[in-house]
């Protein structure tokens, strides 16, 4: 008697677990001398951070106002994510590689740091950056290097660390900082406003089409530290810029907080495309460790015909909690949100967008793809708000969920508020489970189970991946494949 070989589920799981154990390939720790401000949060700590960074007075004042406001707030509880209370006094709010003064160019950057970024596949040496992508690398609390700076400067484009922008272009920072996400905005944005340490700053002047992708790479290395970066991108009238951020962190047993703020300002006829490939350490299979990714991202289409597009691929973090949003203020302005969020093991994601239609003939498009595997929980939460002034506003929303196990969860929470009768709002939602039939079909064509899963998942995400710059789309596909290793069952 002969029977089809069916491996025992436990044996199979054990094998899969061992493979998953080394699947987070970016989990190494860089052994580097760190300068760390003692843990805990107080006005004294904020003054110390501001002083270390040689900031102008207005910045310190702003931070302190934010901090005092934060003390009056309590952490929000409305989302679908669950986590133990965070002890904000146990976090180091500033950690920096100890290499003295700010490096002037790459030759002054600690070689150990350069090796770190090489391991991550981020070449900082300009001649290696063949793809023509300018990179700003943020290591824990400080920006360590920005490439292609001179070339961009010759075009009038400013692309530098936030700290440098505060020193070199304080008026621009002062004009726009907090103008999209005020320091009173929400618990985590307010905390960020008080303690943010670095991030990227971009200014593209009138009529300039930025000739290369701008990219920031964030890395959390230090133990028990939080990363609070702040990114501010301004596209002046008629300017165009495409910006990408990527992120990784070492594998650690404890949770680490990442509370970033990103503000985008698009003036008349300007276009900003912001892409994120988020791969913070997601924690292990039992849910130990991982990054809490509590981020506020918002773009303001401040002028007529302005265009802001968010594309995100979220595969990492223990908890992802973010809603990249667009304020469609200018007439005929447009906002887009394309998202793939994957939760495996014990990961949780509550993510979506807000599209606030204020101007006439404003348009927004939302395409959200949630993938849940293992015990993962994935929620889409999105607001489409059409104000009385937004005549002929249009929104199209599509939310699709793909379930890959019997223990995972997918939720959709659409909020729609329409106060203008000429508006058109469409919402479509689907939920599907990756089917044994589909898998058998593909396997009977010669594809391994893993290839079959990847093909189905890539097909599911196609509408989002095609929005990503080519090389990052390839990266995103690989990341998804790695994150889903052994996810079926």
């Amino acid at each position, binding site marked *: *008697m*002969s*029977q*089809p*070989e*069916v491996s025992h589920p436990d044996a199979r799981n054990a094998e899969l677990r061992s493979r998953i154990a080394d699947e987070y390939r970016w989990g190494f720790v860089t052994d580097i001398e760190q300068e760390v401000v003692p843990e805990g949060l107080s006005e004294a700590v904020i003054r110390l951070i501001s002083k270390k960074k040689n900031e102008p007075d207005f910045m310190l004042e702003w931070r302190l106002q934010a901090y005092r406001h934060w003390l009056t707030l309590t952490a929000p509880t409305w989302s679908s994510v669950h986590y133990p209370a965070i002890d904000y006094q146990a976090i180091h709010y500033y950690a920096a590689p100890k290499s003295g003064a700010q490096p002037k160019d790459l030759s002054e950057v600690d070689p150990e740091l350069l090796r770190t970024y090489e391991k991550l596949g981020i070449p900082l040496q300009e001649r290696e950056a063949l793809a023509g992508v300018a990179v700003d690398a943020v290591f824990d609390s400080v920006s360590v290097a920005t490439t292609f700076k001179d070339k961009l400067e010759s075009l009038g484009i400013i692309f530098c660390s936030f700290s440098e922008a505060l020193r070199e272009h304080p008026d621009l920072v002062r004009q726009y900082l907090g103008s999209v996400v005020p320091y009173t905005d929400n618990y985590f944005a307010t905390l960020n406003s008080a303690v943010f340490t670095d991030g990227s700053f971009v200014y593209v002047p009138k009529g300039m089409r930025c000739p290369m992708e701008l990219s920031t790479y964030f890395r959390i290395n230090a133990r028990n530290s939080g990363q609070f970066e702040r990114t501010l991108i301004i596209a002046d009238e008629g300017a165009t810029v495409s910006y990408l951020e990527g992120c990784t962190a070492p594998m650690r047993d404890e949770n680490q907080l990442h509370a970033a703020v990103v503000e985008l300002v698009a003036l008349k006829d300007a276009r900003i495309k912001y892409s994120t490939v988020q791969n913070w350490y997601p924690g292990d299979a039992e849910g130990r460790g991982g990054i809490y990714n509590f981020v506020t991202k918002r773009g303001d289409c401040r002028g007529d015909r302005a265009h802001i597009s968010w594309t995100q691929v979220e595969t990492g973090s223990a908890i992802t909690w973010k809603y990249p949003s667009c304020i469609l203020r200018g007439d005929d302005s447009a906002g887009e949100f394309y998202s793939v969020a994957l939760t495996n093991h014990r990961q949780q994601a509550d993510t979506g967008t807000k599209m606030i239609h204020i101007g006439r003939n404003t348009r927004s498009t939302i395409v959200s793809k949630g993938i849940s595997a293992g015990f993962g929980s994935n929620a889409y939460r999105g607001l489409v708000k059409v104000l009385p002034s937004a005549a002929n506003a249009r929104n199209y929303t599509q939310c699709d969920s793909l379930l890959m196990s019997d223990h995972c969860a997918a939720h959709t929470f659409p909020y729609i508020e329409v106060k203008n009768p000429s508006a058109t709002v469409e919402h479509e939602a689907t939920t599907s489970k990756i*089917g*044994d*039939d*589909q898998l*058998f*079909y*593909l*396997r*009977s*064509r*010669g*594809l*391994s*189970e893993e*290839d079959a899963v990847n*093909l*189905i998942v*890539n*097909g*599911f*995400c*196609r*509408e989002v991946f095609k929005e990503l710059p080519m090389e990052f789309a390839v990266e995103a596909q690989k990341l998804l494949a790695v994150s889903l290793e052994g996810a079926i069952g």
Partner: protein
Amino acid sequence: MLEIRNLHVSIGDRPILAGIDLDVKSGEVHAIMGPNGSGKSTLAQVLAGREGYAVTAGSVRYLEQDLLALAPEQRACAGIFLAFQYPLEIPGVANVQLLRSALNSVRRQRGESELDAMDFLDTVKSKLALLDMDESFLYRAVNEGFSGGEKKRNEILQMAVLEPRLAILDETDSGLDIDALKTVASGVNALKDPERAVILVTHYQRLLNYIVPDRVHVLANGRIVRSGDASLALELEDKGYGWLTPDTHEEARP
């Protein structure tokens, strides 16, 4: 090429196949006919490696291997192809993408090099022409929004590209108009070769007007109750299945 011996298969507690014996040699075309519920599709699925069926007795040898020990993808790489009765939709995945992944997977297994994009396209286009299919087929998502006939033709396209040693067609003819039927038949006839074999699972005789089988088997109640040459199919067309299956309540087809 294929030797099925005393094959017993159940789904849950329910026996479906109750002792199948079948030999298929290289170069042969076999038709497996029979009334609904006789186990035809189960046999096709078990040969392709579908999970959920319990083989309770018997054996299947294919090219000197224990076929039942192989995973579905291993069987595909060993040259078995099942054209599905109900092809699945894979949203967002272009046909061309699946064809290329499948072909390269099979080629790797055979120890051949993967085809680059240009060579692959040449190969596929020649197959499209053979099946009188439009190139736009390649760029549509796999079976998504396809009509019944298009789905079946797409199965034949996959078969033509993968060039299997043993092709199993599970009711590929059902629901096809006469033009589509001819297309399917020409796809199968083009594959005929002394080194290959075909198993046609079908309810009706009409496909066999275009693909002439070497052997015809009638399946009823999980057993082969009659085998013969192509004339058996014509006899069935005439008399229905009732005269071969006295112990069932199946209505004989007029």
